[in-house]
């Protein structure tokens, strides 16, 4: 791939996200210098000063690679998603938020009015005059605007066409480095891009496949939270110990970091290859290991998972088949 007029252009943007993805990119250490050596960074709000109007003035398709992290929660996010799609040749949904909604997507369990109310008028917020933010506000200098929230958070793919998906919360730095290497090779004409829609920077199996813990036939009489078990067997499968571990449904690529460090997989790498609905896969996985045959006994065991919806859709709710709580998206 040759580019006229100097180095190819690179952009990175954050929508509804926490900033962890940006830190993960910087965590590639000296690899970030390769980005600078091979790309002209034209837009990256967290790292450099740039105005939206500068991006709007660019020619369509003039940015070679845009890493877009964060979900689409308000009209500003949506505008930037559409703008960067228009200006970019390759648009990557970067990180769990852009791929499937991630933790901000759990807000899809509540109507947006409740979310605003919780943020501005609950016990943690001292707001005796019940002052809420407004979309527009008149000041002597003119009218001020702030972005308005949408009903629910949407992953990038539900808003614009996406070329590649790079999962993880955040994507592991060694995976980012590998993707940077690949893109540089493509720019130099030494490698081919994978087919559109490919999940990059991750494996094609499950976290269990990479997990070092020993696995046997599982039969669980009780689900427990990890803090309620002492001691946790350091070498035995966590699910086998009754800890709801999301590994069986989750895409590999992280080297099973959490189970390796003694914590259950929470599913940040999203659905494994071929999984249409992450939560459904986990429901299947958990149901298969429960050692009970009567509804009463099964229900008693399931009581050990206090928030089943949050457990099976922790990172994937906005990207799931149902996408949101009915009360959240039916709001008129």
């Amino acid at each position, binding site marked *: 791939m040759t580019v006229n007029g100097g180095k190819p252009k690179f952009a990175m943007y954050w929508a509804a996200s926490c900033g962890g993805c940006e830190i993960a990119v910087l965590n590639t250490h000296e690899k970030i210098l390769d980005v600078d050596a091979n790309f002209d960074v034209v837009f990256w709000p967290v790292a450099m000063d740039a105005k939206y109007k500068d991006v709007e003035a660019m020619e369509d398709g003039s940015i070679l690679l845009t890493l877009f992290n964060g979900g689409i929660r308000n*009209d500003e996010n949506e505008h930037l998603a559409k703008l960067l799609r228009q200006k970019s040749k390759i648009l990557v949904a970067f990180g769990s938020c852009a791929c499937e909604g991630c933790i901000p997507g759990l807000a899809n*369990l509540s109507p*947006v*009015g409740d979310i*605003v*109310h919780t943020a501005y008028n609950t016990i943690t917020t001292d707001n005796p*005059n*019940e*002052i*809420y*933010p*407004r*979309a*527009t*506000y*008149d000041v002597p200098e003119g009218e001020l605007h*702030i972005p*308005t*929230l*949408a*009903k*629910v958070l*949407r992953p990038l793919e*539900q*808003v614009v066409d996406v070329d590649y998906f790079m999962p993880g919360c955040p994507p592991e730095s060694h995976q980012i480095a590998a993707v940077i290497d690949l893109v540089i090779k493509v720019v130099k004409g030494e490698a081919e891009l994978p087919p559109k829609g490919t999940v990059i920077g991750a494996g094609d199996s499950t976290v269990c496949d990479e997990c070092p813990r020993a696995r046997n036939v599982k039969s669980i009489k009780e689900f427990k939270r990890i803090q309620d078990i002492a001691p946790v067997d350091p070498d035995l499968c966590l699910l086998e110990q009754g800890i709801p571990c999301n590994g069986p449904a989750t895409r590999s690529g992280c080297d099973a970091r959490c189970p390796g460090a003694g914590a259950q997989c929470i599913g940040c790498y999203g659905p494994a290859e071929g999984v*249409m*609905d992450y*939560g*459904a*896969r986990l*429901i*299947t996985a*958990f*149901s*298969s290991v*429960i050692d*009970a*045959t009567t*509804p009463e006994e*099964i*229900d008693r065991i*399931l009581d050990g*998972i206090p928030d*089943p*919806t949050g457990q*099976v*859709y922790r990172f994937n709710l906005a990207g*799931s*088949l*149902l*996408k*949101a*709580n*009915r*009360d*959240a*998206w*039916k*709001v*008129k």
Partner: protein
Amino acid sequence: MTDNTFEPTIIGFTCNWCSYRASDLAGTARMKYAPNVRLIRLMCSGRLDPTFVLRALSEGADGVMITGCHPGECHYIEQNYKALRRFLLLRRVLQGLGIEPERVKLVWASAAEGARFASETTAFVEEIRKLGPLCWGKSSEQLSVISEQPDDLLLITDNSQKEVPA
């Protein structure tokens, strides 16, 4: 039947060895039951991936009926117990998504129980009729609905709200 009667759309998953034959028996015996259910035959209720249920609900079904062999009578020894466990966990997850757990029903029916299949189906249809439409709609329609700006959001109110104290 009047035009304003809500006719629920029900997807039914049946086991090849029992409940599918029960429905067949109900048919050949000319038993009357509600026509709202669309049956899909699986080899076993244990084949029922919860994805099937979520897909049905997200694409316009108002309820899903899962049927299988009675406990202890599974053609594949114990897979109907797996179906039972999935069903119980799935209902908990659906509740968190604002979907009444009653919209998914599990029925055991042997190949000889055509009458039971018919009466359970009719009862389920009536139950869903009482609950009303699920309204999830087609996924493409839902996408356009969720991308609309909400009207009642406090952020969009006018400037006549309480003034910011100086």
